[in-house]
């Protein structure tokens, strides 16, 4: 059995498990409600008189800070709490297949939630003549951001058997990843830090890369940033599982 088949088996089990508990329905309802609420009530979707989805996408990072940890917190903490990690760690293959399979399932799940917002796209297309390319890239950016946050959360979930702790750690870590590119923070840094340092900090921020893509431009550096965050935290996840597998 090759790695791809093993990942597929883990993916299927994990993905199905979301829909065997109320988690899927609760997550999707909250996500769709909040995404709509922010877009219409705070983003001024109608008031702007522009046929685009910027008011919709601009709040995704802040939604993800709280919603993605709700998905990622259970990835490994639940396996640890129920003891199933003991059995799956004795399976005749390495940890990486399990880590990738679980991550991909979580990413697919959040991506489905994101895809369900296509009614926004349909609405704006009906109301005007939006730039569909920009919207597609913004969807890609949102999916990549969700993936990056999930990878961070999966790693942190591997460090504890307490899902609440996993949730809080992930929310804080994602918040820090965003905050590093938040204009107010960068303005504060510019007051005393060299510009190189400020630019360096800004470049580590998920917000900087997300907003860059949200404008409809696929810059390889932005895509690479998200890919790097995902891969780096998945590798850390593998190390964390191997390190704490007998706990």
């Amino acid at each position, binding site marked *: *059995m090759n790695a791809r*088949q*093993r990942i597929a*088996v*883990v993916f299927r*089990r994990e993905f199905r*498990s979301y829909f*065997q*508990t109320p988690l899927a329905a609760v997550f999707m309802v909250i996500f769709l409600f909040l995404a709509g609420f922010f877009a219409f009530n705070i983003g001024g979707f109608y008031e702007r008189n522009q046929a685009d989805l910027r008011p919709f996408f601009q709040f995704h990072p802040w939604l993800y800070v709280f919603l993605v940890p709700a998905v990622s917190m259970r990835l490994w903490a639940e396996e640890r709490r*129920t*003891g*199933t990690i*003991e*059995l799956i*760690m*004795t*399976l*005749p*293959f*390495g940890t990486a297949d399990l880590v990738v399979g679980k991550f991909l399932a979580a990413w697919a799940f959040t991506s489905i939630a994101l895809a369900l917002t296509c009614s926004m796209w349909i609405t704006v297309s009906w109301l005007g003549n939006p730039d569909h390319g920009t919207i597609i890239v913004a969807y890609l950016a949102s999916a990549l951001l969700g993936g990056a946050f999930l990878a961070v959360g999966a790693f942190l979930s591997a460090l504890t058997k307490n899902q609440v702790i996993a949730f809080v750690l992930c929310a804080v870590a994602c918040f820090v990843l965003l905050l590093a590119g938040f204009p107010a923070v960068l303005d504060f840094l510019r007051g005393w830090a060299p510009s190189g340092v400020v630019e360096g900090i800004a470049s580590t921020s998920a917000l900087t890369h997300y907003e860059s893509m949200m404008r409809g431009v696929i810059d390889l550096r932005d895509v690479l940033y998200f890919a790097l965050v995902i891969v780096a935290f998945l590798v850390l996840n593998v190390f964390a599982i191997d390190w704490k*597998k*007998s706990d």
Partner: protein
Amino acid sequence: MLTLRAIRKSFGPTTAVDGISLDIAAGEVFGLLGPNGAGKSTTIAITTGLLVPDSGTVDLLGLGSPSDPAVRMHLGLAPQEITLYGELTARENLMFFARLYRVSAPHARVDRLLELVELDGRAHDRVATFSGGMKRRLNLAAALVHDPKLVLLDEPTAGVDPQSRNRILDLVRALAAEGKTIVYTTHYMEEAAKLCDRVGIVDHGRMLDVGTVSELIARHGGHSTVTVSRGEAHDRVVTADPVSEVARQFGAGGVTGVRVEQPDLEAVFLALTGRSLRE
């Protein structure tokens, strides 16, 4: 089949396993008998590759250490904790592991295992709705899904009702009859006595002695006690030859009752550690 050599494992200042060595032959049912905290589960965790020993070596089937995934293919573990997905059905749980192990004809294998553990009638029910005994049996089935050569059963009857316990013991006997090598940890001496070809007595991380139950009793159990009743009077005689003693007492006449108490594994444990197994 399984060889442990001078295994040591410490957790901070606590030594969980202190130089355990073992040779378990193919087809043998080997019991690790000791109280809670004796180091049995740590020894099992090292045997499965879940834990890396501080020193010493583990060899399975002459293939090397279980830290090698290819070696782990040959072992099946039923951990002390229930390690099943509660939101999945019994069948889905077994199918998940069968697919990961790339079992050929997984549906037939899973059906057979569900029959074996007498859960075929609950195959499509969620595990979360099962009793403790049913979960234990399914846990055991999950360990067998890939037909391993070595089966490690860590306290498989802990916390189950007598009916499930008997079913599990019958299942272990059936596995032994199939020629599986079984390592069975327990703190129930009667289970070890009933099931195991050989027993290792473990305490404070050390292997105190290994042998068949009769060998261990002969070495450490002490003598039998013959209690002879003559009306209201009762005499207790400690003897190495209870048959001769009973014959002698009957020869003396007036015997109204005789009770012979033979030493058991409890006596062996008491002799080896100075305390009861259940303390």
